C-alpha cells in the first residue's frame, strides 16, 4: 500500500458481491435451519438466550459467564457437569453461560481440514456432536472464536443454530486472526462471513445475536478509547444497518481501570440502537501474571466494577470472573468454581458501592467517548467514500477496514487533535488502558533501576514474540530503550531462523523472546542450534512469558524452565531485572 496516496485498489483489489447478492445467499443458506432447543432453554422456558437475558435484566439479576478451554469433548462434558453440580446444586450459585473454545481448525471448511495441522482444542466432527453441547447441563453454551469471521462462518452458524446456540461470535477475530495463507482468498473469507451475518439477521426476531470481542480485534490496537468507541459504531453499522443482524459488543480483556470499565459500558449502551442484550464482559487479563495473590486482587477489582455496572446500567452482559491461574495454564474446573464463588460474594458487597459511585462524573467521560466515537465513525465513512469504497457494501467495507489497520485508521481519521509529536499524530481523547499500562509499567520499572539512563548505550539486542502476544515484549523493549540499548524489534509470530539472520545483520549479543504458545523448548532448541551452527559466539538468549511446552497425551502444557536453564537460556519474566542481567553479561 502506498504511504502517500490511498487508493481503492490497494484496499479492495478485486470485485466483491453487492449487499443484495449477499443477502440472497443468506436467505438460501437459511432455508433448512431451525433453532434447536437446549436444556437451558427448557429449564427457563425461553426460545433463545436473548429472551432469557431480557427477562433477567428486568428482574435486576446479574448474569455470569465461564470460559471453557479443554481439548476434548469428553473432558468438557465432564467439566460442565462437575461445575454445575458444585456451583448450582451444592452452593445455589447460578452460572448462566459457558463460552466454549473451539479448535482453530473448526474455522476451516471441512473439505480443507486435511491440509492443515489440528490444534489442541475442541473439534466437532458431526451435527450430533454440535447438538450435544447444549444437552449436558442447563447452562447456555456460547461459541466465540472460529465461528463468524472464520473461513467457515456460514456452515458453523448453521450448525450452532441447529444446536440451540443463539449467541455466537466473533466478528473481531476477522480483523486479527489469520488462518494459514493460501486456503481461501480474502474476498471469499468476507463473502462467507457477510453471508453468515445476514443469516443470523434472518433469525434476529428469534433471538439470534452476533458477538464481537472488541479486544480480540482492532480494539486492542487503538490508542484512543474514543476511536475504539467509533470502531464499535462501525461494527454495529456493518452488522446491523447493512446486514440486518443484531450485535453484542464485548470488551474487558484489556481494560485495567475498574471505573473505565463502567464508563465504556455506558458508552456501549448508548450506541446500542436496538437494545440488543450483551453477551459478556470479559475479565481484565492485562494485570494477570504468575503472581496469584496480585491476580486475586485484580479479579476482585474488575468483578466488583462489572457487577456495579450491571446493577446501574443493565445491558445483559454476563460478568466473567477469570481464574487466577489463567496466565499460567488452562484453568481446571475447580479453579473456575473458585472464582465464581468469589464473584458471588462480591455481588453481595457491590450493592453497597452502587449508590455512592459518581454517575455524573462517569457520564461526562462517557459523553466524551461517544462524541469522539461518532466523529471517528463519520471521518472513516467519509474518507472511504472519497476513495471510492462503496460504504453500503459490507464486503468492500470489511476488506478496506482490515487493509487499513488500526494505526492508519487512527492516523487518518482519529477523533483526537492533530499533533505531530503525539503517537499516531493525534492526542488521544482518552488513552486506552493498554497504552496507559505500558507507559505506567515502563515508568514504574525505570524508577526502580538506579542509573538507568545510558547504562546500556551501544548494546544491540533483538526482541521478538513467538506468538501474537506482544504486551510483554513492548514493556521489555521500552525499558531497554530507556537504558540506551539499541533494540531491533521483529514483532509477533517470529520464527527462530529470522532471529538468527537478524543476529548476523545486527551483531546483537542479546535476544529477548516472549512466548505463550506452548513451544518454549522446541523453539529454544532450534534457536540455540542455529546460533551454534553459525558460530555466533557470546549470544545470550533470554526467554519470558509462559515457558512451557505442549506434550502429547497431556491436557496442559508442561513447564520447561529447568530444561531451558540447562540448555543455557536465561529464564526471566521480570522486566525490572533485565537491565542488571544484561549488564552482568556484557
Amino acid at each position, binding site marked *: 500500500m502506498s504511504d502517500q496516496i490511498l487508493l481503492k485498489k490497494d484496499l479492495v483489489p478485486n470485485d466483491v458481491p453487492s449487499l443484495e447478492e449477499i443477502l440472497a445467499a443468506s436467505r438460501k443458506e437459511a432455508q433448512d435451519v431451525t433453532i434447536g432447543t437446549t436444556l437451558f432453554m427448557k429449564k427457563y422456558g425461553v426460545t433463545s438466550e436473548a429472551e432469557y437475558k431480557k427477562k433477567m435484566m428486568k428482574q435486576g439479576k446479574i448474569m455470569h459467564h465461564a470460559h471453557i478451554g479443554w481439548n476434548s469433548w469428553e473432558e468438557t462434558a465432564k467439566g460442565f457437569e462437575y461445575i454445575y453440580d458444585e456451583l448450582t446444586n451444592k452452593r445455589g450459585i447460578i452460572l448462566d453461560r459457558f463460552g466454549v473454545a473451539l479448535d482453530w481448525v473448526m474455522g476451516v471448511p471441512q473439505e480443507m481440514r486435511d491440509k492443515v495441522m489440528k490444534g489442541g482444542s475442541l473439534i466437532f466432527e458431526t451435527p450430533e456432536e454440535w447438538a450435544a453441547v447444549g444437552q449436558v447441563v442447563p447452562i447456555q453454551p456460547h461459541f466465540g472464536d472460529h465461528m463468524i469471521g472464520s473461513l467457515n462462518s456460514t456452515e458453523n452458524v448453521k450448525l450452532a443454530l441447529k444446536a440451540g446456540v443463539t449467541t455466537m461470535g466473533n466478528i473481531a477475530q476477522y480483523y486479527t486472526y489469520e488462518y494459514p495463507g493460501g486456503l481461501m482468498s480474502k474476498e471469499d473469507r468476507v463473502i462467507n462471513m457477510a453471508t453468515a451475518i445476514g443469516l443470523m439477521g434472518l433469525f434476529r426476531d428469534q433471538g439470534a445475536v452476533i458477538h464481537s470481542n472488541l479486544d480480540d480485534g482492532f480494539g486492542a490496537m487503538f490508542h484512543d478509547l474514543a476511536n475504539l468507541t467509533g470502531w464499535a459504531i462501525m461494527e454495529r453499522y456493518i452488522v446491523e444497518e447493512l446486514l440486518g443482524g443484531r450485535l453484542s459488543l464485548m470488551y474487558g480483556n484489556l481494560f485495567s481501570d475498574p471505573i473505565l470499565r463502567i464508563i465504556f459500558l455506558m458508552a456501549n449502551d448508548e450506541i446500542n440502537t436496538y437494545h440488543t442484550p450483551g453477551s459478556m464482559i470479559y475479565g481484565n487479563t492485562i494485570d494477570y501474571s504468575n503472581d496469584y495473590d496480585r491476580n486475586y486482587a485484580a479479579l476482585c477489582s474488575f468483578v466488583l466494577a462489572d457487577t456495579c455496572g450491571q446493577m446501574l446500567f443493565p445491558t445483559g452482559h454476563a460478568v466473567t470472573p477469570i481464574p487466577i491461574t489463567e496466565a499460567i495454564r488452562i484453568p481446571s474446573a475447580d479453579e473456575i468454581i473458585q472464582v465464581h464463588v468469589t464473584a458471588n460474594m462480591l455481588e453481595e458487597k457491590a450493592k453497597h458501592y452502587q449508590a455512592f459511585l459518581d454517575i455524573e462524573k462517569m457520564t461526562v467521560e462517557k459523553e466524551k467517548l461517544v462524541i469522539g466515537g461518532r466523529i471517528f465513525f463519520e471521518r472513516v465513512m467519509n474518507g472511504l467514500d472519497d476513495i471510492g469504497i462503496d460504504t453500503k457494501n459490507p464486503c468492500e467495507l470489511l476488506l478496506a477496514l482490515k487493509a487499513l489497520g488500526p494505526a492508519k485508521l487512527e492516523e487518518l481519521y482519529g477523533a483526537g487533535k492533530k499533533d505531530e509529536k503525539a503517537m499516531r499524530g493525534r492526542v488521544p481523547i482518552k488513552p486506552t488502558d493498554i497504552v496507559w499500562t505500558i507507559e505506567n509499567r515502563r515508568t514504574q520499572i525505570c524508577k526502580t533501576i538506579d542509573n538507568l539512563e545510558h547504562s546500556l548505550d551501544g548494546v544491540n539486542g533483538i526482541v521478538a514474540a513467538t506468538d501474537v502476544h506482544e504486551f510483554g515484549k513492548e514493556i521489555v523493549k521500552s525499558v531497554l530503550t530507556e537504558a540506551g540499548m539499541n533494540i531491533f524489534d521483529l514483532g509477533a509470530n*517470529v520464527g527462530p531462523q529470522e532471529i538468527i539472520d537478524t543476529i548476523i545483520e545486527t551483531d546483537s549479543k542479546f535476544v529477548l523472546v516472549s512466548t505463550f504458545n506452548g513451544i518454549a523448548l522446541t523453539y529454544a532448541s532450534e534457536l540455540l542450534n542455529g546460533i551454534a551452527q553459525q558460530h555466533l559466539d557470546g549470544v545470550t538468549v533470554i526467554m519470558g512469558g509462559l515457558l512451557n511446552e505442549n506434550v502429547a497425551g497431556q491436557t496442559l502444557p508442561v513447564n520447561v524452565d529447568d530444561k531451558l536453564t540447562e540448555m543455557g537460556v536465561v529464564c526471566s519474566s521480570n522486566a525490572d531485572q533485565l537491565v542488571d542481567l544484561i549488564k552482568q553479561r556484557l
Partner: protein
Amino acid sequence: MKYTILIDFGSTFTKSTVVDMEEQRVCYTFRTPSTVGTDASLGLVTCLDQIRQVIGEKALLEARKLASSSAAGGLRMVVVGLTESLSLMAGKNAAYGAGAKIIASFSGIVTDAALEQIRSLDPEIILLCGGYEKGNSKWILENAKRLAHAGGIKAPIVYAGNSQAAEAVHFLLYQNGKTCILADNIIPAVNTLNIASTVEAVRDIFMKRITHMKGFDTVKQYIGPIVMPTPAAVLKGVRLLAEGTPTQPGWEQIMLVDMGGATTDVHSYAATETLDGVRLVGAPEPRAKRTVEGDIGARESVNSLLEAADMRRIRKYSGLADEEIRLCQDKRLEDHAFVPDTEKEKLFEQAIAMEAVRVSVRRHAGQLYDGYTEGVQRIQKGKDLMNIKAIIGTGGPIINSIDPRSILAQALRTKAEKDVLLPEKAAFYLDTSYIFYAAGLLSGIDRETAMRILLDKLIPLT
C-alpha cells in the same frame, strides 16, 4: 517537434521506434542486427537511413531522439551480503533493478574460495552490503578487508551496508587500490528496503561503461547521450503500464516475460502486501521487480535450460525422443542465430519456451512455507503475484511461437501448486514490437503518449 525517435542498442538488434507525437502513435519501427560488439554507430546509421526515407530529412533532423543500451548483454555483477534472506536478497533486487546480470552471489564472511571465484569471473561491479543501521560492522569490515587484499579483483565496489562502517570500508578499499562508491544502506532497519541510491550508483557505472564502448562517441553526435540502460527502460515501461496516467487507467498488477537466447528476464509490478495469515520473512520486495535467469535461454543457455527443466515435460510438449532433443540442442548451441525451420524444431522451440517461462516465473515469484507456530501462521518468502491481471510475453521464442498462449499459461499456478504465489488466471498479451523500452524512454517526456503506444502495440491473445 512532430516525431520522437527511440533507439535501443541491444545485444542482438539495434532497434528503432518512431512515434508521431501529435497522433500519439507509433508510425514506424525498424531493426537491424546489432553492431554494439564492433561499432555501435553503424547500426544506428542503418536505422536512421531507413527512418529518413519514411519521415524525410527535415523531420529526422528535428525529431527528438532518446536511446537506451543493454551494453552487450548487461553489466556482470557479483553481490555480497551477510544473510541470504535479508541483505543479500535486498542487494540482488537492487542489482537487477539497476539492469545488471548477477553472475555470482555470496552471504556471510567471504571465503577464500569465494574470492577465487570472483577473481575468475572478473565481474564489472561488486555490490557489498549487510548490516542494519547501528547493526553489524564487524563482518562488513572483515568482508571489505578480504576484498581489499584480494589480488586480481579489479571491479569497482559499491558499498551499501551499515553506514557506521562506510568510512572504514571506503578507506580500506582505497588504500588497497580499489574503487569504492558509497551508497545508502539498502536495509536501514527491520522491514525497510532502500535500494534507490544503490540502483543509481550501479546505473552510473553501467552508463559509464556504455559511453566507453566503441562507436558511442559517434552515436552521441547523432542522437545525444544514452538516457538509460535498456533493462531500466523496460522496467519503467512496465511500471507505466501498471500505474497508468491521469487519463488512461493502468493495468494494476502485471508481469512481462522476455525470453532471449542467453537469458530470460521477468519483470513484475505488484503491491508488496502480504497475504492474510502469512508472515513475510526476509527483505521487503520492491513493487517493480526484475529478475534475470542467466541459465534460461533458447540458444547460448539451452543446455542449462534443459538442466533446470522437467525433461518429462520437454518430451511431452515436443513429442521428441531424447536423441532428437540432443540434435536440436546442438543446433542451437552451434548457431545462436538459428531460426527453427522444420516442424520438429518448432515443436522443440515451443517446449523449451514453455519450460523457460514455467521455471523463470517460479523463481521470480514468492512462495509459502509452513510456519513455525502451531500451524496457524505461514511464512511467505518473496513476492505475492497472485493478483497479477495480465501476463505479457516477448522475445523471439515467444513471439514467433505457433502457440504463444500455451507458453504464457505456464506462468499460472496449477491447482496442485497451492503454495506458489502466482495467479490462477490472467489475460495474455504479446509484445511483438519490443515496445516496452520505447515506452519507458518516452515516459520521461510524455507519459500519456507512452501509455497510448503501449496499449496500441500489445496484442491480446484470446
